[in-house]
């Protein structure tokens, strides 16, 4: 299964995020990725979605401190660094979300008492940052050769702030379903792109 069941669409009700308004079922912004660009981490990737760009590095399976080791699976750590300033509470909550997603996808039981660290650096932010971080983390984990049971990706949806509709819960629910459907359809584009870029990488050897 290519889609990760628990996290196949990340939805956030955003009003006025700055991204151009788009109708449901339409294409995502232009995206690109580069793999193995850093020499020190075991796996690295840079993911671009329009103007949003995130750089990810993965170290692992590596040594872990005795206080943090788990006896039957790998300890997964995610560090998200914003473009400017020190990491704050928003970064911590995003780190937790990304960590839960990665833990569901990575086969941690194959490497007990080790640590897998994902370091994400925001290079530029122009909307849908969390989705870009998730995509960069996934490609970096694949690049590092960490065994995974599925791939995952993120797509951000926005709800229109229409005064009359917000008051009615059922139509608001409906809008949510439309968002889910649109995000699921769009995630297929991203998975197809993963496949193409990984095939391009292996076509040289």
């Amino acid at each position, binding site marked *: 299964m*290519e889609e990760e069941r628990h996290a196949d669409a990340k939805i956030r009700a955003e009003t006025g995020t700055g991204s151009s308004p788009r109708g449901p079922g339409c294409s995502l912004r232009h995206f690109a990725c580069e793999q193995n660009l850093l020499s020190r981490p075991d796996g690295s990737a840079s993911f671009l979605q329009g103007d949003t760009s995130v750089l990810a590095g993965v170290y692992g399976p590596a040594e872990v401190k005795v206080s943090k080791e788990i006896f039957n699976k790998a300890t997964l750590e995610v560090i998200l660094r914003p473009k400017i300033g020190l990491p704050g509470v928003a970064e911590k909550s995003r780190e937790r979300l990304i960590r839960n997603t990665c833990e569901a996808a990575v086969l941690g039981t194959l490497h007990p*008492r080790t640590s897998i660290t994902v370091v994400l650096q925001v290079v530029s932010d122009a909307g849908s940052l969390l989705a870009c971080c998730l995509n960069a983390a996934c490609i970096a984990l694949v690049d*590092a050769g960490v065994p995974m049971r599925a791939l995952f990706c993120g797509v951000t949806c926005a709800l229109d702030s229409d005064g009359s509709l917000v008051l009615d819960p059922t139509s608001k629910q409906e809008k949510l379903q439309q968002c889910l459907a649109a995000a699921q359809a769009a995630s297929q584009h991203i998975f197809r792109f993963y496949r193409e870029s990984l095939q391009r990488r292996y076509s040289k050897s």
Partner: protein
Amino acid sequence: MAEAVSVAAESFAGGRARGARSVLGQVVLPGEELLLPEQEDAEGPGGAGERPLSLNAGARSRVRVICGPGLRRCGDRLLVTKCGRLRHKEPGGGGGGGGVYWVDSQQKRYVPVKGDHVIGIVTAKSGDIFKVDVGGSEPASLSYLSFEGATKRNRPNVQVGDLIYGQFVVANKDMEPEMVCIDSCGRANGMGVIGQDGLLFKVTLGLIRKLLAPDCEIIQEVGKLYPLEIVFGMNGRIWVKAKTIQQTLILANILEACEHMTSDQRKQIFSRLAES
């Protein structure tokens, strides 16, 4: 176009599994499920048209297939866990089952495997055991008695910082890896402390496997350039030594760059070096 259509169909059908035989040599992604080719019972001695009656008529017998690196068994299918090209090798015995399937992936991080020959760096000496860094998640332990001709009174001359070429006798996910520098007969067989001078550098695991393949052109061409000593560790480390420091550095650069060059570019560089 056909490729795009097949990808769409696979994802809309909720991850329809493909047959393993149909994807040999292609890039597979983590999360894909592969179907094994099913084989029917062999014809019985009764002659053409007769088949021995099986008690469970519904089930067909399956051959025993070995799951290599990058694959895991998931029900009666294979689940791909790493990205790479799918490979298959027929059984050599002729009747020993369905062969081996594995995924050829590229990675930098080494995970200890029993029987692998690796180059390690001695980091600590505690009592009777040396701690050797092999590039994995834990340092491996090496007993001082695991050298050729070593006894309790005749200890090997190993210092912290020495390079060791040995093989793993214990390497699984639950235990600390242990290595030795003798084979099962008690002979060194090339293993032990690696001598003075030379240069140790790190490459990806895929390049090491390529260089250690039976008929590798790169090694033959490199051997024709300069006389050299070379040791390959399956953990991505190569130790090389030539007559002068300059030659050693040239060899190290060539081997590191080999990964990204096509064979034509390589031949050009070798011919240019052979002239100078």
